[in-house]
């Protein structure tokens, strides 16, 4: 893992099930995430994925990569994301990442997620690497 290295992209089909299951699993009952009629009444063409699900997908993308390289003890320290265009059912979200910095203890990775409308999410993630002496 070296700065500038690209992570393999992750393609996530945004199904209606993912949007709703993600909202409910995150205890987010805002109607725009599960009720298409209510979403349309608020000016959205359909329900859209909530930010907690985006956050969870970004975390999954990065930990899958880092734990695959550094072992299961690697753990998230910071996740900062900014949302751009929404993700609607039927969209395909493609997450890409690049290593920004690496040291003995941490690795920092930038993540971009795009769908047909443009950039859905941009963010940076800091992961603590397992130390050799402590669990």
């Amino acid at each position: 893992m070296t700065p500038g290295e690209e992570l393999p992209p992750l393609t996530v089909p945004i199904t209606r099930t993912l949007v709703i299951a993600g909202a409910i699993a995150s205890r987010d009952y805002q109607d725009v995430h599960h009720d298409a009629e209510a979403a349309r009444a608020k000016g959205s063409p359909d329900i859209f994925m909530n930010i907690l699900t985006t956050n969870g997908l970004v975390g999954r993308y990065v930990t899958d990569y880092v734990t695959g390289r550094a072992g299961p003890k690697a753990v998230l320290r910071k996740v900062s994301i900014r949302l751009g265009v929404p993700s609607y059912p039927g969209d395909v979200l493609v997450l890409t990442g690049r290593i920004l910095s690496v040291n003995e203890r941490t690795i920092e990775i930038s993540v971009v997620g795009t769908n047909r409308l443009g950039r859905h999410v941009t963010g940076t993630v800091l992961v603590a690497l397992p130390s050799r002496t402590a669990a």
Partner: protein
Amino acid sequence: MRSVDDVHHLLKPFEGRPVAVSAPARDPVNAPMIRHWCEAMGDTNPAYAGPDPIAPPTMLQAWTLPGLSGALSGRTPAGRGSVGHTSAHDELFALLDGAGYTAVVATDCEQEYVRPLRPGDEITFDSVIESVSPRKATRIGAGYFITTMMRVRVAGELVGTHRFRILKYAPVSGRLTEKPTEPPRPDRTARPARPRPVVNRDNAPFWEGVAAHKLLIQRCAACGALRFPWLPGCGRCGSPEWGTVEASGSGTVYSYVVMHHPPFPAFDPPYAVALVELAEGVRMISSITGVPHDGVRIGMSVELEFIRVDAGWELPVFRARSEGPEGEVA
């Protein structure tokens, strides 16, 4: 009259106001919620399963949300979700709802995780309104960015922080994120009417002539110069006095173009537009009938006729003579 940005001075005092003080989470950190989350996200990280799992750190905010009963009844009803909550959030939202900023979208989430959460951890949290932006115009509508900062604790120990930014906005109808619709295709059976001529006191006698199947040319009453199209004064001597001469109807194609693009709804390209020189010497723009658009030629001999283009009105056009230009002015 109040300006549209008027509410900002009412919003500003909310900065620094606590939303939650030592508010308890609805449930302790627990394995079933962790499992539901991992299933929804498709996250198979072994650290989140097994006999001693940690919670996915990105679940941090999920532990603090009120859940369905909170969403249905607001934050004020009795129940665990409302304990420790102030009225600041409800007041701020009521103010913005009342001003028309009724919709909410989350824009930013910045989380730091001090230590992993494990099943059994009892969470409390403090939340404060960090900032309220001035009114901003965005792609989805104008509104205010509201940033809150939350500190999450277990038994008094800080385990994580969560900075969250939302846009509270007035939705614009006709979202830009809609899929673009196909442009309407021209319906050949219901073609729009041709543009109508502007008839005024300077040219009304010309259109009266057309209605009587006469093509009238203006002639200056002072110098005798013929002119076409119709104008209030003589281009040669400036006199406003004029009379008319009826055209014989003979002419030749002086020049032409063939229109292919852009299409105009009332017309059906390709078609020829000709500059016809009348036997009297003036020129007029018109259509050529009797030949296809690619059969029009410079020097072609033509003869005046009137066609009815829409119900109620006619136009002078020129029909190509079937024979060659013998006997005509070259």
